[in-house]
């Protein structure tokens, strides 16, 4: 399951990435493998051709992989970098649904940003972690001051 962080609860020493496009283009792109095919297809309706190339949903042109959507790049950042926290504020609903279904990964946002399909997440409290398996409870936790 993914772990959700609020600003006050980010542990020292863990990197928080807010500009997902740049991080993907510089680092995550080097980590991609066949596991990326599914996510690129589901979110961007594009075909993963090779490490640096995709086939666009619009007309089938082969494009550099930097043309993936920010939402898709954010998911791939989370998936391939489980030791880093990524801001999800630019993700559309389709990307959010898949992010909340990831087997692991760390997400952050200033405000509640929750998939309606969420089942269970781990949230970071000040000194410990807690499991939440209901949308409303997660929303309440996220919106609270603590």
């Amino acid at each position, binding site marked *: 399951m993914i772990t959700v962080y609020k600003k006050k609860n980010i542990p020292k020493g863990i990197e928080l990435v807010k500009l997902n*496009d740049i991080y993907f283009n510089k680092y995550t792109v080097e980590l991609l493998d066949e596991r990326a095919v599914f996510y690129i297809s589901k*979110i961007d309706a594009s075909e993963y051709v090779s490490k640096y190339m995709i086939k666009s949903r*619009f007309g089938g042109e082969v494009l550099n992989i930097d043309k993936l959507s*920010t*939402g898709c790049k954010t998911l791939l950042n989370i998936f391939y970098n489980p030791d880093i926290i990524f801001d999800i504020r630019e993700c*559309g609903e389709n990307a959010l649904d898949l992010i909340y279904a990831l087997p692991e990964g760390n997400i952050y946002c200033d405000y509640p940003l929750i998939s309606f399909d969420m089942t269970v997440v781990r949230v970071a409290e000040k000194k410990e972690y807690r499991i939440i398996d209901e949308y409303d409870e997660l929303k309440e936790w996220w919106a609270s001051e603590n």
Partner: protein
Amino acid sequence: MKIKPVIFDKIQTSHTSFVVDLTTDNNITFIMGDSGVGKSAVFSFLQEIAAEDKRIRCFNYLDNKKNYKTTIKKSKGKLFIIDNADVLLDDNMRHYISLDAENQYVIIGRNPTGLLLSYDELYELESTKEGNIVRFTLKKCNI
């Protein structure tokens, strides 16, 4: 502040096989929706018309550390097209933009909070294929 567009009521351009045909009903046009539907692609096409028309300025995440806020506040008679708005626009800028009747805005993002927009000012991108041509237009957001 809901007012008619002060600069353009239509924004049109083409880029190879892509046609952008946006009708702006209000001074702020907020474009949201799923990831991967072409929002940032449209932004990149609009950057090209900004190169030819001084009334248009474009900002995205690459401008995060630049003086885009001051530029906006000092401008009159401009159309600002802003991608990655969730990263670029803080609460103060959103408040400023919501009350700015001197400039027009097309804002691409997810969260319209603070812009004082009503539901009928929120749009999604729609793409239709006509032969080899892909045409991007706006449709009211389905909320």
